[in-house]
């Protein structure tokens, strides 16, 4: 049972990196590729239908961390206190940027929230690298360790590349390149590598610190039957918003 829940937790975290990675990547590229307001609108519109379905993987990671690894949840988050706070604020500003950018007219308004999307995406991507390095050392190294900062840079670049591949798949030619779905799968897998590596190293420790058998049994009974529904809902999103000639026909809410 501990191994099943480790697998569940790992799928959620790896899935978050592979999926939300391209949303953050598009956010990072916003000031670089979206020189005009129309360009930025198109970039945001390309990722908009996926964002809600993608970011929620991290909410699920946190919930699973609490339910399956209650002894570690506090230690992990507290050890990274300043990084977690900065990442949360980045996440909040990125989301606010998406929800608010089109809710009022005016160049300044949208420009400000676009900057918040880019800024938030940067904070979140960089923070992930720092957090992963600290986790890989068992929190022996602080988040500001030079190697942590380097991994922050690596994750940021990986996400940017993943976001660029996503744009080339969803809006072929619009931002310079066209890529098939296979390329997006590859960039997603590569973007998830840092998280997968840390998880693989931490597996014995995590399995050992799982919640009690009684708790895992209740969780399994309640949650696992719904796993196919969760997967089905995600597949429905990808089926509904697959690229096609109507990708830009409708204005985006974000």
């Amino acid at each position: 049972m501990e191994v099943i829940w480790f697998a569940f937790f790992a799928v959620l975290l790896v899935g978050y990196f592979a999926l939300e990675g391209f949303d953050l990547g598009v956010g990072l590229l916003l000031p670089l590729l979206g020189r005009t307001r129309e360009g930025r609108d198109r970039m945001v519109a390309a990722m908009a239908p996926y964002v809600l379905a993608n970011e929620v993987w991290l909410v699920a990671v946190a919930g699973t961390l609490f339910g399956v690894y209650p002894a570690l949840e506090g230690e992990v988050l507290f050890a990274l206190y300043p990084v977690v706070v900065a990442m949360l604020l980045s996440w909040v500003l990125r989301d606010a940027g998406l929800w608010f950018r089109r809710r009022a007219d005016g160049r300044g308004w949208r420009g400000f929230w676009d900057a918040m999307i880019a800024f938030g995406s940067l904070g979140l991507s960089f923070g992930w690298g720092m957090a992963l390095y600290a986790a890989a050392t068992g929190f022996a190294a602080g988040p500001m360790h030079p190697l942590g900062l380097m991994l922050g840079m690596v994750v940021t670049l990986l996400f940017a590349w993943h976001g660029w591949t996503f744009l080339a798949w969803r809006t072929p030619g619009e931002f310079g390149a066209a890529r098939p779905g296979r390329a997006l799968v590859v960039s997603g897998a590569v973007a998830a590598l840092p998280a997968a590596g840390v998880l693989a190293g931490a597996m014995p420790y995590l399995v050992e610190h799982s919640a009690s058998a009684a708790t895992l049994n209740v969780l399994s009974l309640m949650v696992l039957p719904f796993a196919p529904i969760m997967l089905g809902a995600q597949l429905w999103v990808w089926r509904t918003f697959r690229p096609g000639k109507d990708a830009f026909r409708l204005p985006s809410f974000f």
Partner: protein
Amino acid sequence: MDVLDLARTQFAVTGGLHFLFVVLTLGMAPLVALMHTRWAMTGRPLHEAMTRFWGQIYVINYALGIVTGLVMEFQFGLAWSGLSHYAGDVFGAPLAMETLLAFFLESTFLGLWIFGWGRLPRWLHLACIWLVTLTAYASAFFIMLANSFLQNPAGSVARDGRLELVDFGALLTNKALVFSFPHVVAAGLFTGGMVLVGASAYMLRRRTEQVEFFTRSMRLGVVTAAIGITFTMGFGYAQFAGVQDGKWDNVGAAIGLALMMEVGQLLGLVVLLVMLPLIRFLPRWRWAYPLLVAMTPLPFVLSIAGWVAREVGRQPWMIWGRLTVADAMTPGLTAGMVTASLIGFAGVLGLLAVVDYVLIARTIRRGPREPDLGAGVPGETRAPALSL
């Protein structure tokens, strides 16, 4: 303030902000789903307009519900790791279920509903908003389940200095849960109904051309508010049987309780004995509009008062009779750390909350003509989208 007070303030601020938006989400989700159902069945433009206009207010409100919720979820680990150390085996399970069974699906289906406009077949699109409503209620259920465990730690025993889960069924039938969950849900409906009434009164006062639109909205709001306040009061009184001894000895809790009950009952009388019987005429009485607008913030104040009564009344316990709030705080947490994060969270979320309310007010003032939600649906005559 010492570090404990700071950490409590931080949780109270984010929790309070979160619930201000969640209570309206809970109330508006079924109303928007109802409007969408009528649109799907009749195809009438009026019902489409109602779905899009009130749907847009619902989703703008939802944005702040999400971001405040994110901060809350992570605060357990940041500031209250003593809780997960002592009771994580019991308390963690409902929170995990909330994220996996409820919010994961809610967020996915909400994305499909918002961006599936004009893409999804009519009935599948309708199914999305009902699924959003269902999962939003599931979310509220699991959160209330977790909160009720703090009020009354059922289904668990202390062993080796930690709580162990022995009976999940006892968590589900917790006396602190069975009446408080419907109480909260009904309070949400009451809030949603009163927002429809207040916004409609505001627009009718401004002599909008959309008289039928806002007359219908106001009547739907009055009926919803009447149902909501009836069950809020009923399940509110029913809760007294399950309240812990000594809860109201706490002055803050007693004040919250008194405020909620006195103002709530007065509002209940106005809704049930004046607004509901006069529902036919109310939308035409211009003199009543300012009063209806002025009543709109009250359900929000009452909701916060209710939480103050429930949570302040729990002090000094984190888990009633088992773990104090002081013992639940993360060891090693310093006042400097909490002060910095408190300023960051309260500042950013507070500003965003103000912006969100301004945007909701602005959406109401613009009226139902051109909401962004569902814009550009084929078959409507309008200029091609200038921005995409």
